[in-house]
């Protein structure tokens, strides 16, 4: 069953297949290792400690949301002139993080980057959980939550329809489509692995539950054929979708006339930033998770190094976008634009701006060095910087533009309230709780997909027929 990986040299691939999985690389050991996490009678002690803290934070989130709904949006710091505050900052922050999962699963799939197979499952799960956190904000910041259905084009007693030419409605469609497609993509990838768990189950409850969600998957080649085609189509659909979602989020700003927002660079700049922040979050969560659950041989240092390269590339793009914004503000000759950008760097929020530049532009540059790129501690610290920096970026965009726009008489200074802070901390609790539950109860690594990159998955054409030699 185990074969020498170097023998897998084929006409259509004029290079040796890269080794993507370390250690014992046969099919059964991959199954054992991934399912072992789920089937262990007890998770590691650290898991208990972590989930206690994160679920307490989640409870705090629900309490804050309940307080907001009962009392009103006034419990937040949003007030004239900054009617958008941490709610929108955090919404964009979480939506951005949600982009890494689909990027890894769809775009890297289309680009045949096989190294994605070890990390795509966890990254897709993070996408879903981040979308949950993101979707929470727009629905509660409408104020009268019980009327949030007005966002959707439903027939109603007012005989009115929503305005389809508004970026805010585009946002509703983009984020809800993204959540739905990500869920389908993630669940479809899970089906064969749920079947594996079902077939290994020792208790009736596990067999019943995993069996229910495995939909009777049996690994039939006829099923695999349509499954792979559906997966490819979903990847091809999700690729433009992932680019469209953050473009649409950027339209919320770019289509308005507020100085500092009304720029054409926003869609590409937001997408690059989203990928940057998403990969930052994947590194932040995967570095401890692979240690905790003993998946170091499947999620190798090579995977982490590749993600760090993506962080370096997108971080540099974001830096370029900052510079371009300044150039255009000067070159465009609009005094309000010029003022906004000078105000960002030198105004009352200078600390946020320069911290953002340090976190997003300076910190990732250390990843040019292989030693740093492959050091777990260094990459963990840099990924934390990226997370902080990308949050600050959204804060700088939303708050500096709103608090100082055209009329100096209506300038202000935004201050968050304790409820703002606790709600934001609570979303981290929700995100991490869902992620910890996922790690414990679902296969964290796509078992069937990892098997396809093992040497055992490749026919060697050694059976004397012409056909066998062609498709390796």
């Amino acid at each position, binding site marked *: 069953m185990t074969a020498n990986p170097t023998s897998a040299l084929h006409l259509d691939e004029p290079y040796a297949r890269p080794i993507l999985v370390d250690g014992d690389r*046969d*099919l*059964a050991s991959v199954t054992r290792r991934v399912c072992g996490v789920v089937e262990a009678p007890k998770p590691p002690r650290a898991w208990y400690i972590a989930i206690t803290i994160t679920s307490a934070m989640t409870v705090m989130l629900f309490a804050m949301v309940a307080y907001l709904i009962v009392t009103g949006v006034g419990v937040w710091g949003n007030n004239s002139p900054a009617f958008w505050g941490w709610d929108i900052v955090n919404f964009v922050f979480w939506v951005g993080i949600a982009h890494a999962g689909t990027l890894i699963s769809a775009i890297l799939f289309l680009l045949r980057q096989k190294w994605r197979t070890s990390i795509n499952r966890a990254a897709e799960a993070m996408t879903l959980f981040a979308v949950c956190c993101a979707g929470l904000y727009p629905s509660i910041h409408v104020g*009268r939550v*019980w009327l949030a259905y007005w966002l959707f*084009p439903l027939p109603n007693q007012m*005989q*009115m*329809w929503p*305005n*389809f*030419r508004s970026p805010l409605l*585009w946002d509703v*469609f*983009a984020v809800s*489509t993204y959540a*739905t497609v990500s869920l*389908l*993509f993630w669940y479809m990838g899970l089906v*064969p692995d749920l079947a*594996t768990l*079902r*077939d*290994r189950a020792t208790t009736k409850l596990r067999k019943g539950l995993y069996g229910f969600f495995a*939909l*009777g*998957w*049996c*690994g*039939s*080649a*006829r*099923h*695999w054929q*349509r*499954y*792979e*085609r*559906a997966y490819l189509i*979903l990847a091809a*659909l*999700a690729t*433009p*979708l992932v680019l*469209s979602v953050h473009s*649409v989020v950027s*339209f919320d700003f770019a289509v308005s006339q507020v100085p500092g927002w009304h720029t054409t660079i926003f869609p590409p700049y937001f997408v690059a930033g989203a990928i940057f922040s998403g990969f930052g979050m994947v590194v932040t969560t995967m570095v401890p998770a692979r240690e905790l659950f003993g998946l170091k041989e499947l999620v190798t240092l090579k995977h982490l190094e590749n993600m760090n390269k993506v962080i370096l590339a997108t971080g540099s793009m974001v830096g370029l976008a900052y510079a371009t914004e300044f150039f255009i503000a000067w070159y465009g000759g609009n005094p309000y634009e010029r003022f906004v950008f000078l105000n960002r760097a030198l105004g009352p929020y200078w600390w946020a701006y320069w911290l953002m530049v340090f976190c997003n532009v300076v910190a990732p540059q250390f990843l040019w060095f292989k030693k740093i790129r492959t050091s777990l501690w260094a990459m963990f610290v840099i990924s934390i910087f990226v997370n902080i920096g990308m949050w600050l970026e959204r804060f700088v965009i939303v708050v500096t533009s709103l608090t100082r726009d055209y009329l100096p008489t209506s300038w202000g200074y935004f201050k968050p309230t304790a409820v703002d802070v606790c709600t934001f901390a609570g979303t981290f609790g929700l995100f991490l709780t869902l992620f910890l539950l996922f790690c414990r109860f679902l296969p964290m690594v796509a*078992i*069937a*997909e990892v098997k*396809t990159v093992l040497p*055992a*998955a*490749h*026919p060697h054409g050694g*059976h004397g*027929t012409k*056909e*066998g030699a062609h*498709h390796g």
Partner: protein
Amino acid sequence: MAESVAIQNASERPLHGVLAEFDDVDSISAAAREVRDAGYTRFDVYSPFPIHGIERHMGLRPTKLPWIVLVCGLSGTSLALFFQWWTNAVDYPFKISGKPLFGIPANIPVTFEFTVLLSAFAAFFGMLILNRLPEHHRPVFESSRFRRATDDGFFLAIEADDPQFDAAKTRALLQKLSRHPVELCHDSGQSAAMPVWIRSALVAVGALALLPLAAVVWARASDTTRPPIHIVQDMDSQQRFRAQVANQVFADGRAMRPDPAGTVAWGELRTDATLASGKRGDAFLETFPVPVTDAVIARGRERFAVYCTPCHGQSGYGDGLVALRAAELQEQNWVQPSSLHDPLVRARPVGQIFDTIRNGVRTMPAYGRQMSVEDSWAITAYVRALQRSQNATIDDVPAAERAKLGVQ
């Protein structure tokens, strides 16, 4: 062993097919080619991961899934475009700053998202439907070895309903290809379809899920005299007594309370009733009860510009911007403001003009609450000046000033 007992018991049930196990991708691909070349069509390969190129070894035709996705995607595109056009341009025309009611660019984001959504549904659910999933049972699951098909086992099963199938011959063919003992697979009596209780539970949940929708449809289609159900009150209906309604708490049954005897409401103190009402007894004053000076007329002109010009116009002809706009829009319920130079208006005593300003007339609102009595008299004085200016003769101009006008 339990396995052999199971197989023995099973032998009384109808035969489903023959199951053979293989060690790796190469041997199962080779076996699939052999079985295909032997003319079998109803056979399947089971593996823990998709085997590259197996569909050619098995002689499978490409799936029609992409066409289903294409059709659904195009439906999504046209449906989204049509819906946006119908809702925003036809059913509820959305006028925004004179922009066209329908234009492609602004409607592209939603169209794109909806296309992707329907295509993704088609890809996912199309895959499930074409694969006949969810599937409750398959006779190959009866084999205890078959569990490894989702771990590291490779299996090939030829089904008994294949026209080429012959229990002995087929078994011999597979045994020749496989190193492992070939197994006969029997129908377990379990149906591939969902058990009845799961199906009924799904139907019940589906029916319950439709109930709220049915309630909404019923409520919209039926008439009732009861007030609408208001789950969240907001500030729409408040528990209070409105003006002009009955209130049993008070002896006179009125909710609106008159001032207690001997009190004056704030701002309502009128020491001079004639000055405040423009009337002496029931008759309107013919002369101003305040001295008319240049300062008063100037004040009146300034207040007139604030309160009166929007409808009556700068010169008082009833041609203010609001009136012009209403005429342009051909508003049905608009009452044309009077021209202050109409003979009827000119003939009115100053007390009546003052009274009109204070208390309104027809659709003209009462301004008494918005300005002081003195300002109302100032405006009245200015109206008089305006009326005289628009109906003046040369005799009205002082002799000393006539030269400036170029007339004698």
